[in-house]
């Protein structure tokens, strides 16, 4: 009886729908579901730190993907200069990007906090261009590829063969989601960040150092995205504008899920990742994947706006 009553709620209907869909895809074309999950996880893990900055600091960081690009170049640099395995390079990269986050915050973000949103947008857009051009000048626009033998590992179950390395993204997405959730709920700074995200003036009035909170959240998010860049470089080509599409997709995911809704980012990443995967699997339709991605976003935002108007 309890299950039946729960199924009257839209949330549980969506979960049931997703499970049924997953079972159907798994039965018909299991590799599509696996690839969809891997793709979704990559979208989610990239979008989560951007959501943290937007939800708490209130800045749309249009240089988000470019910090990931820097992380990828750092992985390449570490591998070439010191032979350091990219998985190990994630540790120094995280520390380096935390410092880069601190410097960026003081030099660029803090001065525009409280100014018009357009100024903030233009600033981060400009920063992204600067980072891309800097990468272009330093490494040229030619794609670089890391040679990491174990990323090509695959597993065969019956007739199904699939790459296993991409499950690192699934693990990373779960880990980042879990750590962010735990940080926001259980730590003093995390709770302060939630308060600041909901009401910065109210936060000041209970004794929270709002600027310090912004600094920590911004630097932490840059540390996460820089580290994800290292992970990304292990499987993908590295070139100066590689981050731009991910900035756009992350922003769209946040818009779909709603600002501050990090659980929603996981769900919408799954929807978009699996949908893209299905489209890509249809012969001759691979080029439609991006179109479907953005069409779904437009649809989701329209439906939500309609629901809000009806309420």
């Amino acid at each position, binding site marked *: 009886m309890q299950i039946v009553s729960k199924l009257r709620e839209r949330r549980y209907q969506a979960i049931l729908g997703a499970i049924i869909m997953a079972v159907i895809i798994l039965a018909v074309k299991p590799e599509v579901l696996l690839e969809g999950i891997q793709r979704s996880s990559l979208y989610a893990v990239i979008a989560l730190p951007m959501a943290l900055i937007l939800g708490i600091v209130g800045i749309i960081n249009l240089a988000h993907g470019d910090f990931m690009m820097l992380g990828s170049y750092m992985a390449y640099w570490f591998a070439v200069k010191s032979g350091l395995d990219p998985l190990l390079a994630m540790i120094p990269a995280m520390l380096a990007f935390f410092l880069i986050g601190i410097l960026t915050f003081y030099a660029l973000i803090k001065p525009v906090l409280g100014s018009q949103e357009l100024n903030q947008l233009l600033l981060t857009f400009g920063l992204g261009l600067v980072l891309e051009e800097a990468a272009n000048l330093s490494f040229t626009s030619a794609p670089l590829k890391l040679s990491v033998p174990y990323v090509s590992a695959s597993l065969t179950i019956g007739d199904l063969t699939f790459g296993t390395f991409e499950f690192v993204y699934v693990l990373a997405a779960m880990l980042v989601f879990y750590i962010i959730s735990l940080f926001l709920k259980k730590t*003093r700074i995390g*709770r*302060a960040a*939630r*308060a600041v995200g*909901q*009401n910065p*003036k*109210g*936060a*000041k*009035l*209970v*004794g*929270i*150092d*709002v600027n310090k909170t912004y600094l920590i959240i911004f630097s932490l998010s840059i540390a996460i995205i820089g580290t994800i860049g290292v992970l990304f470089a292990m499987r993908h080509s590295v070139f100066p504008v590689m981050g731009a599409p991910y900035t756009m997709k992350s922003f769209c995911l946040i818009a779909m899920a709603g600002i*501050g809704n990090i659980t929603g980012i996981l769900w919408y990443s799954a929807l978009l990742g699996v949908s893209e995967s299905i489209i890509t699997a249809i012969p001759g339709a691979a080029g439609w994947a991006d179109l479907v991605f953005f069409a779904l976003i437009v649809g989701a935002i329209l439906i939500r706006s309609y629901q809000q108007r009806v309420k």
Partner: protein
Amino acid sequence: MLSIKNLDAFYGKLHVLWDVSLELGNECVGIFGPNGAGKTTLINCIVGLVKPQGGTVEFDNKTLLNQETFQIIRSGIAVVPQERELFPLMTAAENLEAGSAYIPAAHAKRKERLEFIFSIFPVLKLKSSLPAAVLSGGEQRMLTIARALMAYPKLLILDEPSTGLQPSLTTDLFLRLKQIRQSEGISILIAEQNVRQCLKAIDRGYVIENGKIVLQATAANLADNDYIRKSYLGL
């Protein structure tokens, strides 16, 4: 405890506070005035949300002018803002927790404090698991006052606490403030337009109009003052 001398404040080129001076010891003091008189600006100057151009603001003989809002709050001043400024998606309990979490001395004694808060605002205990956004206006007002009290303040500042409250709740609110003042011995500064109710709770009062202090007296003298009776009490 709180000493404000010759304070001048501007919004851009608009001069909003003119040579304002105010003293507050261990007592309950009211600031009365019409909309736009400068009451909220004065409070914002005290807590560092507005930086004054001239004058001094001292609390416990230390200047507040070079301090950030969070430092001023941590020094023992709690504010109940007119717009409530709660954390809407957090539960009432989490909002209360936030009131003490960033003030080390208060955080150590938060459990005893919650008992005290629930004894004066029992409805907050009943609704402690609900998000602040779904509470009624009166409950949100109580929550804002309770959140401020969680900080064990030496000075409690309330900016138009009766705004949006029905008359019975307003009477109740000022009774509770009196009760808090008696049991806690804290100083209270109330900016208010509801002079009739507020006079029952305060020891002294100031009248501010067009950014200038035009009158100051004890509560009894203010209640008998012809200007106050005519302009603020409608008698």
